[in-house]
Structures are given as C-alpha cells and as structure tokens.
C-alpha cells in the first residue's frame, strides 16, 4: 500500500512539475531569442497566480469575469467527450477483436494486413469527411444531423467521431496482445478442459491482456487529446482546449493543462491498479 502511494505519488508530483514547466514554456521565447529570465519570471508569476486561483479572471471584450467555477463546465465537457470516446473505442475494439479471433486464420491474416492502413489516417481528414457527409445528408434529406455552428453542447456526434481513430489503434493493439496470449500454455489447458471460446477469451485471456494493453495504449490517450483539440477547433465545440486556444494568457494555458492532467492521471492510475489487481502482476 505504502509502496503504491509512493509509486504514484512520485510520478504525480514529477508530472505536475513537468506540466508547470511546460506551461510556462511559451515565455521562454521573446520573439526568437531565448529568454531564460523571462521564463523564470513567467513561471513564478504563473505559480503565484495559481496560488490565488479564486481571483483568476478572464476577459470578454472589456468585461472581466472570474475564471472559476465557469471553467469547470468547459473542463467537464471536454473530459466527458474524451473519456466517453475512449471507452466507446475500447469496447468496440474489444468486440471487433473478439469477432476477429473467431474468424478462420486466413481472414485473420488478411484483416491484420489491412488494418494498419486506416489507423494512420489524419484526424483532419476524418473531420472533413464528417463535415462533408453531414452537409451532403442535409442537402439530400434536409435533416440536419448535427448543428455544428450551435452554441449548445452536443455529445453524440463528437464522441462518435473522436472514437474512430482510437478504436482502430486499440483494435490493432488488442489483436496483437490477444494473439500473443493465445499461444500461452494456460489457454491450451483451458481448451483441453473444455472452456468455451467466449468464456476463455473474456474471463481468462482478457484478465491477463489488460496490463499489456495498458502499456501499449498509453500513447492513445495523448493522441486522442490532440484529436480532441482539433475537433473542438473545427466543430466550434466549447471545450477547455478550444478555450485555452481562444484565451491565450499564460496562466490560463497552465491552468488548463493542469486541469486536464489531474483527471487523466487519476483515471490512468486507477486503470493500472485495476489491471494489476486482476492479473496479479505489478507493472514497473
């Protein structure tokens, strides 16, 4: 228990400091010159402002408004989009993996060969396709699937769009992990004992696959975050990253980054703990 606290504590503090340092990074450059003093000043100023976080304000026109708790609505929206999309991606990838594992080897090979092609599609391309698709559908049927220009927050479509690329990445990783898992002796044993394929996969193999999937898929979160940003920008969604983009003050950038970092770190940590508990192995 103490080990666990230490393990995550050190990492949390280190990452926290890292985010602070990165947040002040735009202050390092004065035009093109390196400005170490300016960087230090900015860092200290940001930290001081963060200490008195209740007094932080943002500006619309000439009016100043307090940043909190207003900012949390933006944060919530972004986080809901991000995690719903990731969960959706995880589940659909798991389903697809299950179906693929049931297929005969020949098809499996073909799918494995072909799947890599789609995962590197740039997110901008997918967003453009969705936009064109929505417009085309509107022209044909005069039903507006999503109101992209609306101010109110929409959920279904952004989550779906955001989950496409992570789902493909998850799918590839899961297929790889499950295939490796399938060659282990315990699977053979379970098969000889007559455990059915579905139960074998979801009860026994899934448990052991959770941890490797975690290691391979940590970068997916980062990838999805940058997708989320571009999506918020293109679709004009009122999420926190777009907010950081439109209000480019130094402290807001740091605050936004920290607010994103804390929940993502906690959820990743929880997933890791869960995976370790279930597979009875310890990572790192």
């Amino acid at each position, binding site marked *: 228990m103490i080990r666990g606290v230490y393990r995550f504590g050190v990492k949390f503090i280190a990452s926290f400091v890292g985010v602070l340092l990165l947040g002040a990074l735009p202050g390092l450059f004065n035009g093109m010159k390196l400005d170490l003093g300016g960087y230090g000043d900015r860092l200290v100023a940001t930290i001081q402002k963060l200490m008195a976080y209740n007094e932080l304000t943002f500006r619309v026109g000439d009016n100043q408004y307090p940043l909190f708790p207003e900012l949390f609505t933006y944060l919530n929206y972004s986080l809901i989009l991000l995690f719903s999309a990731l969960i959706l991606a995880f589940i659909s990838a798991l389903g697809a993996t299950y179906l693929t594992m049931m297929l005969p080897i020949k098809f499996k090979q073909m799918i494995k060969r072909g799947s890599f092609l789609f995962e590197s599609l740039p997110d901008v391309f997918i967003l453009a396709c969705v936009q064109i698709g929505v417009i085309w559908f509107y022209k044909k049927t005069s039903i507006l699937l999503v109101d992209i220009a609306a101010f109110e927050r929409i959920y279904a479509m952004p989550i779906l769009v955001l989950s496409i690329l992570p789902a493909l990445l998850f799918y590839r990783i899961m297929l790889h992990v499950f295939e490796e898992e399938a060659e282990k002796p315990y699977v053979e044993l379970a098969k000889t004992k007559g455990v059915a394929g579905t139960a074998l996969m979801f009860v026994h193999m899934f448990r052991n696959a959770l941890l490797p999937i975690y290691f391979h898929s940590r970068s997916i979160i980062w990838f999805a975050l*940058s997708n989320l940003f571009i999506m918020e920008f293109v679709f004009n969604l009122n999420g926190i990253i777009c907010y950081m983009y439109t209000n480019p003050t130094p402290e807001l950038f740091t605050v936004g980054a920290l607010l994103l970092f804390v929940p993502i770190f906690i959820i990743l940590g929880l997933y890791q703990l869960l995976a370790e508990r279930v597979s009875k192995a310890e990572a790192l």
Partner: protein
Amino acid sequence: MLMKNPMFLTGILVLILLFGGSVFYTIAYDDHIPQTFMLYNEEGNLIDKAPLTPSQVEPFGTDKLGYHLFQQIIIGAKYTIGIALLIACMRMSLSFVAGVISGTYSKKTSRVTSGLVDAMQYIPISLLSYFILRGVLMENGMEGTFQYNFWERLIFEVIILTAVAVPTTTVLISNETHSLWQKSYIEGARILGGSKVRILFKHIFPHLWPRMMIIFLQQLINVFILLLHLGLLKLFLGGTIFNPDPQLGDEYRSVSSEWSGLIGSTYEFLPYNTWIPLIPILFFVVVILSVNITLEGYKQSQNGQVGKRRKRRKEVHTTTEEKNVSAGSFYFINHEESEYEDQKAVNR
C-alpha cells in the same frame, strides 16, 4: 530482402515521385502556376468563373483566383515532404545521441525523469507548438510586416518542432538501449574483454538500427500530422501573411505554397467549394499512408528474415517423412554434424 518487399518499395516510390516531381517542376517550369479565371464553352460563351471544379479544369480544379490546384500541390510537395524529413531526421539524431549515452551510462530511467517527460502527454503538442510559434510565424496584422525574415522563421520553426518531441523520443531510445545492455550476450562480450565503446558499436548498434528505423518513420508521420494541425490553426510553414479584413473576413495566406498552408487558408470553403481544401488534405493522406506502408513493409521484412529461416528448417524436417520407403530413404540425418564432430575430435 528489404528491397524485395513490395510494400516498402511502393511507399518509398510514392514519396520519391512526389518529391522528385516537385523538384523537377521547379527546375523545368520555374514554378509556373497556370491560371484559368473564366471558363468558356465551345461557342465562346462564358459559362463559369473561378473557383472551377475538378471536372471543369482537370485534374484538381482551381482555387478562387483561378490558379490550378494541381500545380500548387506539385510545387508544395517538396517543402512539405522536405521539411518533415528534416525535422524527423533532427529529432532522431538528437534523441539517438542523447538516448544512447543515457541508456549506456545511467541506470533505468528514474521515476522522476519519466514523470517529467510524461507531462508532455497531457498537453496537446499542436497547442504547445502553436503558442511558441505564433509570435514568430504570424504576420503582425496591423503593420503588415514580419519581425524576422523567411529563413530565420523557417529555422526557428524547425528547431521548435524538433525540440517538442526530443524528450519523449530520448526516453524511448534510452530504454531500448538500456534493455539491450541487459542481454546475456552483452555479458558474454564483456567477459571476453570488449570495451564499452566496442561493444556499443559491434553488438548494440546492429540491434538498435531496426528499432531506430521504425521510430524514425513513426516520427515522420507525427511531423506530418503536426504540420497539418498547425496549418489548420493558420500557422503555415515559414510564416503566415495575415490581412485583417472586418468586412470580408480575415485572410490568411501562406508564404510558401506548402500543403498545410493550402489547407489552412481554405478550410472554411469546405461546405461549398469542397475540393479546394479536400485535395491538399487527400495528398496529406496519401503521403502519410505511403510512409505507413513503408513502415509496415519494413517491419514485415524484419520479421520475414526470422520467418524464412524457420521455414527452411521445417523443409529439411519433412524430407525425413517419406511415404514410399526405399533404400535411399535411410541415411544419417546428422551426417554432416557427426562428420564435423569427428573433425573436431581429430583437431583436438
């Protein structure tokens, strides 16, 4: 082996064709962009004006000033591909040196370092680069001037886009190197008296190269996507010309005609003049896919080397299981080996 892999070859070929074609076009036609502003039918009547669709002007249509998109794409290819290659190479060489040194001389990356570097994962890299680069790349709208000249801006952008990825890649390479040093054959080489530098060059690097190649291609894809994002945020390679115009909407133009500029400056036309932003985006897709195909082909050829050897061993095995038994079927399987053993015995 590698040169026979069809996927690897296809990917490389597409990249070379685009890049080479672009350079050739500059040399042969001096970056000439044909312009068709008015379109007349056979009787000489005006039927349409720019922007013209791809079906009216082959192959890709024109932008709103009537400049043909195809030539713009060709001209832009060398900038986009060239810069991306340059940035990916710089990322790799810096991280390689730093990663190998830290992987060789220090223990496993400590929790503190990896935590610090992990912080990178919680900030969208495009947003961070945007904030750093904006001051330099964006033209000052009020004065209509840049603070720095084209080459300064370009170099600054290359350095920043390199630097944002170096920490993560360094940790990755450092961990790779460190895990190679733990292998038992390295232990063997050490016992035999190899110096650290010699072991590094003779035993570590050959195993590190394939990984480096894979990381390099992944970084290349990363850079392309980063350029695309920055383009969408109206930061174009080498600088953005910015004309604030409250009536007609602000206008952003790229200094060079590279692709992300073509996309960023025209993305809002997507609903009505779909092809203008879509065609550069499609070219980005083509380039990224061909890098990915190259990567996949490379991975396959790496695995293939192992797979082939295994197959050959199997073939030898099957010859011993003939059905029609004849006198010739009986021979010593280990004939060569036993001969070798004999020779060894003689030598002793």
